[in-house]
């Protein structure tokens, strides 16, 4: 491309956003890295260097391993579901139809529903005597109620369904904006060629929003690895029997929060979380850039 702007123009445009991120995000994170080698406490006091102690403790912490395994399972299941389902939902509510604005808004409701109420309703659904177990029992699908809220793995799967439930509306919105950019003439040409709705979805819609799909995939995997509220809600903040149904963010919150926090250990956990989330992001970013011209 020919020279279209002066050298400093992009920097002027980027400067405010960059400054913000450095002050409110990058700098505190560097601070977190520093704290991870100390025994800092939330209330200050003497801070001592402890070398890699927090990191060696972390390797021997059984809960950290449970959390890591949960996170990976979480991501592997959420990634395909939340990359595809919201796109289908967006296609469903995209065209102008009577009352469609109502549906679009309603689907967004789970994103903003209060955690307390979500917890109340979902526990009512998933409890031993909850709706799902009662219905399954009445239909003789189940002999004994499934312990959705107390079994090591069922809790994780219950939390995943909650995440998908919340994520549908959120990513639907991202897709809706992208669908607006899909060229209308391509659809018409494909329709003219006799392509049905399904064919057009794969041959026109998907290629048109591919960039957005990668972005959504990145967001989904990052937030799956950072799951917090779903597990917190379903286990009453306890992380399940034995604390196995926990996540890295739950552990970070537990250690960083409150008067008795262990900021050093929480910081080491944060660094671990950063490294873990970086992996899928790099993979996806690489896949994405490969198709760039």
């Amino acid at each position, binding site marked *: 491309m020919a020279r279209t702007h002066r050298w400093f123009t992009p920097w002027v445009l980027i400067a405010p956003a960059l400054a913000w991120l450095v002050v409110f995000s990058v700098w505190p994170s560097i601070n977190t890295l520093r704290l991870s080698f100390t025994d800092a406490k939330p209330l200050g006091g003497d801070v001592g260097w402890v070398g890699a102690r927090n990191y060696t403790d972390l390797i021997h912490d059984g809960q950290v391993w449970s959390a890591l395994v949960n996170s990976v399972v979480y991501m592997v299941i959420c990634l395909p579901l939340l990359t595809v389902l919201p796109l289908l939902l967006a296609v469903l509510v995209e065209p102008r139809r009577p009352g469609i604005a109502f549906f679009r808004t309603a689907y967004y409701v789970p994103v903003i529903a209060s955690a307390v109420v979500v917890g109340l309703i979902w526990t009512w659904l998933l409890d031993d005597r909850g709706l799902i177990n009662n219905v399954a029992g009445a239909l003789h699908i189940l002999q004994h109620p499934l312990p959705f809220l107390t079994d090591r793995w069922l809790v994780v799967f219950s939390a995943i369904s909650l995440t998908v439930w919340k994520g549908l509306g959120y990513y639907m919105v991202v897709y809706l904006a992208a669908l607006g950019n899909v060229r209308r003439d391509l659809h018409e040409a494909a329709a003219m060629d006799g392509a049905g709705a399904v064919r057009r979805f794969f041959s026109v819609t998907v290629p048109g929003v591919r960039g957005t799909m990668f972005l959504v995939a990145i967001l989904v995997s990052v937030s799956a690895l950072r799951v917090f509220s779903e597990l917190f809600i379903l286990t009453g903040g306890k992380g399940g029997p034995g604390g196995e149904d926990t996540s890295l963010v739950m552990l970070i919150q537990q250690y960083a929060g409150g008067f008795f926090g262990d900021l050093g250990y929480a910081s080491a956990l944060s660094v671990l979380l*950063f490294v873990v989330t970086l992996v899928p992001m790099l993979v996806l970013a690489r896949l994405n850039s490969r198709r760039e011209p």
Partner: protein
Amino acid sequence: MKTLRYTLLVLVLLITVGPFLWELSTSLKGAGEDIYTSTPQLIPHQPTLGNYVRVAEAVPVWRYIGNSLIVAALTVGGNVVFATLAGYAIARLRFRGRRVVLGLFLSTLVLPGEVTIISQFVTVRDMGLADSLLGVALPGMVAALNVLLLYNAFRMLPDDVDQAAVVDGANAWQRLTRVALPAVRGTLAVVAIFAFIGAWDDFLWPLIVITTPEKYTLTVGLRYLSGTFAQDQRMIAAGTMIAFIPIAVIFSVLQRYFFKGVEEGGVKG
């Protein structure tokens, strides 16, 4: 086809709005009616709007709404303006270091913010903004996610439009405002919605920044309804509904912009 579409629409609707309906129904229940039943009762037997009136009497709802709107306006403004500028520069202007900048924005997405809240507060206090609404809004005024959303939107514009404008002698600013911006209105709406809701729903940060009760935002102020010895679930539900209304309004107003510019097109079902 039409029936199928609406059947699907209603099906998804049933899954998504459950908690909302429960909250709505609790807020309308009279004092003589049980709230916690083993099977949630959705239809209030003694419907009343009294709980809403009592919320307005108990806490200065309008003042809190005003505070929240100020914070939300600053947050939306900051994100729309600064994320647009940055997103456009990274997507449409070639310059040395562009990939590094993009990588930086991407990696901010995964920086763990959980342990930084106190150090952020110290920063805001050092700026002299403790106990102020600007201090509440400030850290959220640019979010990496929004920069990336706009970067993604700008990148999808066809190159030839831009080149035509270059030939016409348009500079970068003119190309941004006249050519690119109108084409990404949908994404701008999404950014505005995300920023608004983020600011509106945030609880912990405003709680920490603000100390004077009159300056609290709505989300924090409504927590006064669940005070010591003074829990009233009906009022709490009414408060939640009050907080929900502005979000619903913003969303339904902005969602129509998702398709502006290509309105007549779209996928035909």
